[in-house]
């Protein structure tokens, strides 16, 4: 997934779309928007980002899951099998992005990139609803896909690269 921080206006539509699409219980969220301000007046910079599970290549949550409930499916998406999860919380502790939470029903829940929609050939709910079209979803392994082209031409970053997780959500910054 690629998110253009220059286009994001921080409206939180992605958050509401996700909560509606995935029946996320009240008070919880699988994605969220952050606003970071840096610099000192008059050279202040503002960055808006929609954040979620980074579906890391080297996912610590998958590594430390004692039952194998956390797993990576073909295509690279990190998912949790509800009835294999014992709710031990190890994956929550292991995530540098705090992207996971304990669902009120007990199992651990998080962003699935709307796996159920992808299977039908649709885009994730957050991507399809974004009013400024700042989010792009596609195949990073395909060099001709829209997101591969964006990453080739635009300056980008990932979150906490020093955590060594090799995240798969990229933020365009210039």
């Amino acid at each position, binding site marked *: 997934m690629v998110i253009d921080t220059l286009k994001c206006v*921080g409206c*939180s539509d992605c*958050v509401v779309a996700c909560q509606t699409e995935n029946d996320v219980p009240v*008070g*919880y*969220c699988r994605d*969220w*928007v*952050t*606003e*970071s*301000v*840096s*610099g*000192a007046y008059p050279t202040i910079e503002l960055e*808006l980002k929609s954040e979620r599970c980074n579906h890391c290549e080297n996912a*610590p949550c998958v*590594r*430390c*899951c*004692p*039952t*194998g*409930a956390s797993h990576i499916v073909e295509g690279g998406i990190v998912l949790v099998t509800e*009835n*294999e*999860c*014992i*709710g*031990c*919380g*190890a994956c*929550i*502790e*292991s*995530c*540098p992005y*705090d992207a996971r*939470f*304990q669902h009120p*029903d*007990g*199992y*651990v829940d998080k962003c699935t990139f709307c796996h159920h929609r992808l299977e039908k050939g649709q885009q994730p709910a957050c991507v399809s609803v974004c009013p400024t079209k700042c989010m792009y979803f596609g195949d990073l392994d395909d060099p001709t896909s829209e997101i591969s082209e964006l990453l080739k031409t635009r300056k980008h970053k990932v*979150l*906490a690269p*020093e*955590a*060594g997780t090799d995240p798969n959500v990229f933020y365009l910054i210039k």
Partner: protein
Amino acid sequence: MEEEIFISGRNIPHIDPNLEVWHFPISLYLFLGGMAAGIIFFASLFTILKKEKEVPTAVKGAMIVAVIAISIGLVALMYDLTHLLYVWQLYMTVRIESPMSWGAWVLLIITIISFLWVFSYFSEMFPKFNLRFDFLKKIQLYLIKNRRTMALMLLPLSVILGVYTGILLSAFNARPLWNNAILGPLFLTSGLSTGAAAIILFSKNHFERKLFTKIDLALIVLELGLIIHMLMGMYAGSEVQLEALEILINGEFTVMFFVFVVILGLIFPALLEGVELMGFKVPSIVPALLILMGGLIFRMVMVEAGQITRYLY
């Protein structure tokens, strides 16, 4: 200056503003598991050395304490699971990369063997209690004959259990306070020390008390060295580790850590034990209880402080 805020009102229970997924039961389990590992280590070690007659409490009474501690620890662990009905999934797979997975297996095996161990000494400890069924007597006889085999299995398993209580935490690179390789040996040493303290607490045999006081004193010195090692390692670390260090030496948990763990839980009882070994009369219950208290508070500090530390991006 840099400031980052959630503007979509994120306030997930137990995650925001500070992670609080693991609570007191986990600290309690880490303490009880470590202590039990210590007791089991000494019981099996002295049995292998054929010195079990000289340390009666370690092989008998303290092993009852160990199995009770493990059982309470297991209940505490399960209490903190939020999807408890699926707990059997732990034993459907072995995942070497996940400390919790192999830890759960070791815990299961060590609990079973420890119960068998206590059963093998049962009639000796409680001669008035009659095992009514013949097959129980046969099993007990078989276990008594194979005590050495049990000890040979328990010795490595107890070391793994002791190390595992530390590795469980150190395997998470997302929590910089936990993410140091010394935590495994440190928790093992602390577990052995609390195990020795528990044996001292229940022992009525003067020779045994003195022996374990010596062992415990050596372990405390080692543990203090490892703690300094851990702090120095973080001090020489990256920004996230420096932030983690800050919590222990100049932050929320400084008093808990230095006063209750380092001074009251390690240095003061070590001094008392030293004075006792020099021949002065010190009620040995005092250092033993302080060490046990220090061990529990150490786990609480590490579990709670560790969850506050994180990567900032």
